[in-house]
């Protein structure tokens, strides 16, 4: 075998474990889900095998699913904006810190060492009727009766921000950290104020990181179902909760498959749009 042929084969050999894993764990299950979405649920909960469009007709034409999907996208969008507003200053501070950035980054990663569910449930002890916030307010004398703060859309967004903020900070940090500080100095020497240098130089250069963080926050936020279950009220469901209910509660795997494919299509479409305009390389840097 020639050297060229061996060199041409080498990337495929190196990629083969990852490709095998992706094929076995993602593509093949996805094909099963597509097939399932054309089956029907029988009265006993078993599946009727065949090619039926009923599930797709229901998912695409029923206002109920559209409304929940729009509400999910709204919650994910609000969460992303809040994460961006809170995350950018923190990321900028870490990137420009003169001390040990590694410690600051380690602190940022600390929450990942605790289960996401436990972190979400911690809000019950903070904002609950008998929680830390109400107890402190009553003790100080600012209120007489505890305020009901939990189990609404606001606490769902709060829980999502708590979960997703580190993803935003990491992506923006990678972007800001890679900007040469001499560029800001040059802008200052040409008469720009620090604010003008930030707005006209640093911010535009860091936008790819902000966009990558935004995409991650949006996609992860729109796909969550644990947070609304723990921190939401009776009507605060997101689209992933519909998938969960169809598959787990109603034992309707065909409908659940159609719903999950619909969510995948919407979020996948957003990723494709992002990739078209900004490319996936920034996202890979932030995740790395």
């Amino acid at each position: 075998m020639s050297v060229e042929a061996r060199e041409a084969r080498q990337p495929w050999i190196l990629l083969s474990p990852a490709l095998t894993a992706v094929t076995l764990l993602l593509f093949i299950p996805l094909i099963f889900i597509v097939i399932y979405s054309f089956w029907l649920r029988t009265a006993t909960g078993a599946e009727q095998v065949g090619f039926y469009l009923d599930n797709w007709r229901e998912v695409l034409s029923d206002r109920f699913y559209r409304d929940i999907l729009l509400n999910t996208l709204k919650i994910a969008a609000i969460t992303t904006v809040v994460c961006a507003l809170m995350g950018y200053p923190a990321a900028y501070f870490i990137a420009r810190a003169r001390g040990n950035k590694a410690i600051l980054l380690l602190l940022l990663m600390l929450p990942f060492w605790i289960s996401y569910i436990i972190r979400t449930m911690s809000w019950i002890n903070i904002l609950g009727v008998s929680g830390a916030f109400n107890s402190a307010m009553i003790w100080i004398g600012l209120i007489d009766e505890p305020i009901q703060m939990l189990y609404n859309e606001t606490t769902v967004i709060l829980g999502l921000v708590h979960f997703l903020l580190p993803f935003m900070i990491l992506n923006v940090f990678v972007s800001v950290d890679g900007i040469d500080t001499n560029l800001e100095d040059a802008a200052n020497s040409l008469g720009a104020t620090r604010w003008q240098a930030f707005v006209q130089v640093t911010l535009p250069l860091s936008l790819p990181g902000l966009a990558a963080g935004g995409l991650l926050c949006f996609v992860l936020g729109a796909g969550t179902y644990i947070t609304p279950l723990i921190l939401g009220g009776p009507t605060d469901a997101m689209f992933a909760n519909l998938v969960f209910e169809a598959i787990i509660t109603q034992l309707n795997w065909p409908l659940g498959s159609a719903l999950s494919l619909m969510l995948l299509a919407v979020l996948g479409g957003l990723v494709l749009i992002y990739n078209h305009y900004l490319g996936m390389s920034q996202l890979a840097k932030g995740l790395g």
Partner: protein
Amino acid sequence: MTRKMDNTTRYERLRERYMNGDLERRSFLGLLGAAGLAYGVQTPFAKFAHAANVSEVRFDGWGGVVSEALRENAFEPFEKETGIEVVDGTFGGGDEYLSRVKASQPGEYNIAHLSGVFDYARYHNLGLTTTLNEDNIPNLQYVIPKLVDVFRNVTDGKLSCVPYDYGTTGLAYNRKHVSDEEMKEKGARILIDENLEGKIGGWGDWRTRIWYAALQTGQDPNNATDMEAIWDAIRTHRDLALKYWGSGAELMSLLAEEEIYVTEGWSGRIYALQEQGHDIGYMDPPNGYGWQECMFVIKGSPMEACEELLNFMLEPQTAIAVAEGQNYPPALDPNKVDLGDKIPKLPAFDPTGKLDGLTFADPAYWNGNEGEWSKKFGRIQKGY
């Protein structure tokens, strides 16, 4: 010193040879691939080879105090006596568990603590039942006959489970905010009382919501005639409720933390709260929701080991200890077994052993409407 030749050791030796240059890369990868293939191919069939020598049985239950009681009083003594390990898992609800079983390989799940005859019937309809050899479960003789018969009716006189305990889903209320008199007066309608808006809870289970809506609208829960009235009552409850709870632990937390003042609740869990000193009242309204739980053996399980465990669990001494731990009366017939001092004080306990005072869900009625009602409830729950 010799080292046991397990798969890890094999891989390490192979890797060492490769790193030393004794093995070509192609051979190394080929051998790894062959090892992976061999492992993947043999694993699904390994259980048949191991079946003759059962070393563990998997049990799944409701978690919390229920699982603790079973672990302490039944599984640990069973493991000591037989050497068979009981691996116990938990689930939040019967629907969730059925999905897991449906997605599993035969034999992956063995025994489940199922609630209600309707669940038993669902498993039967999905072809997941077995036939127990009752000769291997002599302690079945102590069980209340009525509890056994309802299961036999579903599976043509045979059994795929043994009844284990029973209880009710009644009304739980915080006595600081709702009096016993008010509860007696309002009954199930307390859950749609506007004065308690934001302090009402409820289980997010479609059967329970429909059952209580039937009581609120004056209908027979096992034969409702006006479903529109029921859906409206569910909507009213939804709009007044703070939260649907999803597990016994969440129910206890919401009541103990006074996030909610009134909800329907599981009798044993409420008794546990009372034992902890919380001033929580409990009442079963007329036609309140009674249920019986069973230990169900799933198709593909090692039958003899499962039957041995079931017989051990039905041993009066064990069943009483578990019942006292989980606060649900055992399925043992009080006319045949002395149940001690604590059990007669538990909510839902029937000293006659006839259970005439409890209303159970009619499996044919509920399972016949399950597909439509669970879906409809899912929509109403989300504001529709």
